[in-house]
């Protein structure tokens, strides 16, 4: 960022939005700065440090279980968020706690982790399993709400207009019988993962799966929902056999990346196993099938 000249420290959202709109694309938001620290962009002339805006720091749960999360919450804050509803805790908060090490988790922001979407970005994987909605605000266009699903289809950096800022993430309420998990496979606790999986399973009153989310991250260029496999689970009774069957099909629904850490074929196999485990864990949370499997009775 050799042409970087100025820093701004706005105290309110409108102030920040005004700076972005006037900047014509040369003024960028900075959250934790962990990605921008690596930036070589000659186009950025000013940075807007949004971490001092009080209106972006909230983590609230409504009476019905809906959550709203401010864009500058750090990964550490999310990892330690004690009031999170159970499924949010098991997906989003767990994912946040697996990111790199404490010095990074202390600064990486929710907004930065979403907007600067890398293959290894962990929070969007969990947010896809939670049907999260991102709130984008602009001094020119007002507010729009984009499902994380839509935001991650192309790339958030392409989807966001230069004058837009991600201000908060909304997580809808989940049914009472809902299970969720996030699993990561990495060489060490702080290394980039080989693969991550987030899953969510909702049950209806009859104990049948009413909705399901299966998301794969890290092994693919951007996190993806495996909708064909989700459909295989929906409408079924949760069982270890179903988890194994769905897991065995993962390889035909993703095009994994291969690199020096792991080959594409290895990652495909890994994702199969992780999806099976994730589903089993969700089933276990909602009906205790793993307990049945272990012969411990219903």
């Amino acid at each position, binding site marked *: *960022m*050799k042409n*970087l*000249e*100025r*820093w701004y*420290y706005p105290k309110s959202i409108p102030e920040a939005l005004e700076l972005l709109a006037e900047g014509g694309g040369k003024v960028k938001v*900075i959250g934790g*700065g*962990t990605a*921008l*620290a690596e930036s070589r962009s000659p186009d950025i002339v000013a*940075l807007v*440090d949004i*971490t*001092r805006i009080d209106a972006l720091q909230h983590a609230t749960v409504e009476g019905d279980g809906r959550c709203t999360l401010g864009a500058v919450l750090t990964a*550490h804050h999310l990892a330690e968020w004690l009031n999170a509803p159970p499924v949010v805790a098991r997906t989003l908060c767990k994912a946040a706690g697996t990111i*790199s*090490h*404490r*010095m*990074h988790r*202390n*600064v990486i922001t929710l907004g930065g982790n979403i907007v600067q979407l890398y293959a290894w970005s962990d929070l969007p994987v969990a947010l896809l399993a939670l049907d999260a909605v991102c709130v984008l605000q602009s001094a020119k266009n007002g507010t729009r709400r984009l499902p994380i699903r839509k935001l991650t289809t192309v790339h958030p950096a392409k989807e966001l207009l230069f004058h837009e800022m991600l201000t908060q993430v909304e997580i809808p309420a989940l049914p009472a019988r809902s299970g969720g998990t996030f699993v990561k496979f990495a060489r060490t*606790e*702080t290394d980039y993962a080989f693969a991550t999986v987030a899953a969510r399973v909702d049950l209806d009153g009859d104990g049948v799966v009413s909705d399901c989310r299966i998301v794969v991250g890290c092994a693919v260029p951007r996190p993806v929902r495996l909708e064909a496999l989700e459909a295989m689970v929906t409408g079924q009774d949760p069982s270890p056999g179903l988890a194994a069957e769905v897991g065995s099909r993962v390889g035909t629904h993703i095009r994994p990346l291969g690199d020096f850490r792991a080959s594409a074929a290895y990652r495909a196999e890994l994702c199969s196993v992780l999806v099976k485990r994730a589903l089993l864990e969700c089933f276990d949370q909602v009906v205790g099938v793993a307990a049945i499997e272990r012969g411990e009775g219903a």
Partner: protein
Amino acid sequence: MKVTFMLNGRAVSYDARPDEMLLEVLRREGWLGARRGCEDNNCGACTVIVDGKTVLACATFAAQVEGRSVTTIEGLGDPANPHPIQRAFVDAGAVQCGFCMPGMILSTKVLLDETPTPNLEAIQDALDGNLCRCTGYVKVYDAVQRAAAALAAGEETT
């Protein structure tokens, strides 16, 4: 530009380029306790405390600490008057070449501020980003436990 912040309890105002890292500025101003190790997010030797939380000075823009409160190892204690955590590291034999120690000790400081009696898992998690190529960590974990005990026993802090 000028960056104005609290450093080890004193207000300072240092010159910095807008794209300059905190590590550069601290070292130029003589605060060599923030170590220049990998300069690439990996080793943790440049760890400093900003508003009560550890961060990597090599990956933090100096401008990000404007108005904030920064602590380097120099803010904890010195050879004549070491902080109980520093004394515990020496007593436990956790210091060999010493290069990683400022980061290790500052991470320990934040850990013990938040969790006065951490278990081994919490200690390992807190020191995850601080690499040491000498000790093999066993004595480091021992040192953190000694420090926790010393602080609990009310040893004087600086």
